[in-house]
């Protein structure tokens, strides 16, 4: 019964979003409409949430009369994986997508009370249009509420690789980011339709950009760490088309974050900012298309069905094509904004945008080129890691070199020489740290020390800004600390985010360049040494899990600093599907990790063991956490709170 209610709620949500979209887009000038659309947005959220809850309920009670539950769940799965199984498949993940979309719509309705009425109506109407399209897509091509009769006694199983806590965290975070950019898109559409494109618009849209960007950062980082520990060969980024699909909106969103800053503060870059807002969500849609249409094969593609692909492609064409037509029609009417010299904060941010846009194009072309070449010419080529590492690295290096200068430069006209002087300390420290690492690692000539230099430079450069603004070394220490903690949160968040980039770069370089690897066969009792860690194989045990059986290898690891840890590496076979997976044993020492993976037992009773020592690998994700944390910090800042701040007069009246 609850399944039918959920189904009905989704149909109702589809109807409401369709009506909201049509009425809102036609009559947006009527002020009275805004209130109705706000209620409509909240109602869409309530209805989709109800239908999602119905789906979760069916999975939790293992109601296998629901086709989706039968295909992707099993009664023996632990509760958490019964719940996550809801979105561990195509239909359910589309519903999650729609749920997050309507959450965003409801949030705009709730926080956007101070927006001009016509703008609010338009934003909610466009948001409803997207919701209508994707609710319709879910209902008509990917309906999660189909029943089976007679109901099977037991369900098949969720893909064992997905039976992991990562599935509980990664897709919701990623979708919050992906879909969050729909708000920026809706704002851009509203601006183009109403012609209201000014600094205030940038102020309204920036918190949404920042919020989405934070979630996307977390989602990508989480996905990367999940792949790292689950897929079992210790890689953390593969330039897989699906990873690229999430990375492109991130790059474009990062550019948008910075260009909206220029638009807000200086009323410049308006056309470009609107363009980026459209592009960012378009890339999110493209990602959805690539993952959900089945034109790519990957662990993310749950089912491939050509009709779905064609429908998503049509939606893609509708939204992106429509948006750009409107853009082309309206962009010429925009006036050019504030003036600035090439050497200025604005100039630096434009450079940032130029490089980020180029990086986005590089990833986009690398991802789509093999598909297009195959479709158009029939030649199959691969574009893999070496290509991306080269092109992306070449584009990123100059961006990272100039990055620390940006926050130091003044708006309108900056003094490059003065800034260079203020950054001299950071440059010196970075050089010293890089040379030290170079010497400590044996002085082997490679690109790695240069990469480290870049990472240290960005990290110290970010700190230098705080040090400089607090006037350390120029006044007494107490005053400096007072100044430091009195700095606006935006200054802190800029510094922390940029510092995080440096940290990630250092982690990437160190883990790639100085990783140690050992492949060997071991019998119980045998020991090996890797990176001064003594690893002893204690033997195998047979363990029965809730829905799998596992051959668990027990290892004792003696760290050079003393202390023994037991690490368990598993080879599992899942009962329902018979699918095997491996679970690596990962032990963290400081920022570094020791990664042990168990291979197939050999005929002679030996076990193949693969060990990696990955120095400073956790910095990769710590840096991402810093970036996202900095974003949330900035969001908590009063002037950047979601929605528009109340005018002072209204606030005074209320008090």
């Amino acid at each position, binding site marked *: 019964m609850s399944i039918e209610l959920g189904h009905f709620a989704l149909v109702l949500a589809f109807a409401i979003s369709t009506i909201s979209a049509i009425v809102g887009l036609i009559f947006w000038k009527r002020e009275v409409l805004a209130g109705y659309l706000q209620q409509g947005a909240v109602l869409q959220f309530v209805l989709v949430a109800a239908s999602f809850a119905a789906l979760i309920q069916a999975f939790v009670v293992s109601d296998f009369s629901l086709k989706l539950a039968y295909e992707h769940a099993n009664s023996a799965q632990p509760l958490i994986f019964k719940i996550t199984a809801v979105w561990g498949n195509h239909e359910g993940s589309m519903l999650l997508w729609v749920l997050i979309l309507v959450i965003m719509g409801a949030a705009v309705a709730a926080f956007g009370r101070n927006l001009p009425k016509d703008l609010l109506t338009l934003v909610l109407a466009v948001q409803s249009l997207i919701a209508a399209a994707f609710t319709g897509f879910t209902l008509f091509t990917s309906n999660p509420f189909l029943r089976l009769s007679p109901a099977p006694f037991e369900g098949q199983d969720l893909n064992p690789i997905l039976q992991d806590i990562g599935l509980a965290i990664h897709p919701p975070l990623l979708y919050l980011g992906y879909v969050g950019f729909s708000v920026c898109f809706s704002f851009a559409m509203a601006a183009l339709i109403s012609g209201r494109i000014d600094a*205030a618009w940038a102020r309204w849209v920036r918190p949404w950009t920042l919020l989405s960007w934070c979630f996307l950062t977390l989602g990508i980082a989480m996905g990367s760490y999940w792949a790292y520990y689950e897929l079992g060969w210790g890689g953390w980024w593969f330039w897989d088309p699906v990873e690229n699909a999430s990375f492109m909106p991130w790059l474009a969103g990062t550019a948008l974050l910075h260009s909206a800053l220029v638009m807000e503060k200086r009323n410049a870059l308006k056309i470009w900012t609107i363009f980026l807002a459209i592009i960012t969500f378009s890339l999110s849609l493209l990602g959805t298309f690539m993952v959900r249409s089945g034109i790519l094969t990957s662990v993310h593609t749950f089912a491939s069905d050509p009709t779905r692909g064609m429908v998503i492609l049509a939606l893609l064409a509708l939204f992106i094509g429509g948006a750009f037509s409107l853009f082309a029609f309206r962009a010429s009417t925009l006036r050019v904004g504030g003036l600035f010299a090439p050497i200025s904060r604005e100039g630096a941010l434009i450079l940032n945008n*130029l*490089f980020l846009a180029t990086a986005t*194009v590089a990833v986009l072309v690398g991802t789509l080129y093999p598909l297009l070449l195959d479709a158009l010419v029939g030649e199959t080529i691969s574009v893999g890691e*070496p*290509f991306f590492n080269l092109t992306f690295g070449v584009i990123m290096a100059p961006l990272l070199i100039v990055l620390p200068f940006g926050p130091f430069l003044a708006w309108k006209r900056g003094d490059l020489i003065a800034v260079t002087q203020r950054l001299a300390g950071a440059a010196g420290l970075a050089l010293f740290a890089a040379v030290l690492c170079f010497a400590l690692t044996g002085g082997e000539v490679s690109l790695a020390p240069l990469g480290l230099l870049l990472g240290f430079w960005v990290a110290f450069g970010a700190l230098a800004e705080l040090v400089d603004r607090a006037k350390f070394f120029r006044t007494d220490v107490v005053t400096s600390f007072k100044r430091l903690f009195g700095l606006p949160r935006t200054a802190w968040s800029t510094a922390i985010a940029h510092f995080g980039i440096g940290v990630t770069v250092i982690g990437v370089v160190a883990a790639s360049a100085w990783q140690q690897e050992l492949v*060997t066969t071991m019998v119980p009792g045998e020991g090996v040494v890797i990176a001064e860690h003594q690893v002893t194989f204690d033997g195998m045990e047979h363990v029965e899990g809730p829905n799998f059986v596992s051959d668990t290898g027990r290892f004792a690891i003696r760290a050079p600093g003393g202390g023994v840890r037991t690490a368990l590496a598993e080879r599992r076979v899942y009962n329902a599907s018979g699918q*095997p997976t491996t679970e690596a044993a990962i032990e963290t020492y400081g920022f570094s990790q020791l990664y042990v993976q168990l291979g197939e037992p050999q005929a002679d009773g030996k076990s*193949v063991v*693969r060990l990696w020592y990955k120095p400073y690998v956790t910095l990769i994700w710590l840096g991402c956490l810093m970036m996202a944390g900095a974003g949330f910090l900035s969001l908590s800042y009063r002037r950047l709170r979601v929605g528009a701040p109340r005018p002072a007069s209204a606030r005074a009246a209320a008090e």
Partner: protein
Amino acid sequence: MRALVALILLVLLSAPALAVRPDEVLADPVLETRARAISEGLRCLVCQNQSIDDSDADLAHDLRVLVRERLTAGDSDQQVRDYLVARYGEYVLLNPVMAPHTVLLWIAAPAVLVIGGIVVFIGARRKRAAGQTALTDDEAKALEELER
């Protein structure tokens, strides 16, 4: 073709083993290092975007052994790659070659950077020539309200 499909299915269905097995490793460390470097740039043809160095598939194992055989036989790195391309097509190379059909792939990003740079440059000059256009009074007032 049918045989190929059957082979792919067979490989996909077989249980995962490990990438680089101990018995594959060459005794000569110089040759082994070269083999690893080459392997990292070769695609496992039945996997999802993995190099043969990373993959556990049996086909990847066969290719790793093949690479090592060719190296032991005295091939240069490029000869090994050419040999594999001749057998499996360009699809096997993770780093695409520079050729007429990949020119767009390679020049797209640099072209965007150059064109973007020119646009920015011209835009900046034109803007300076056009003179100051500040906020209108209404806009300035609205912004001021917000900033308060």
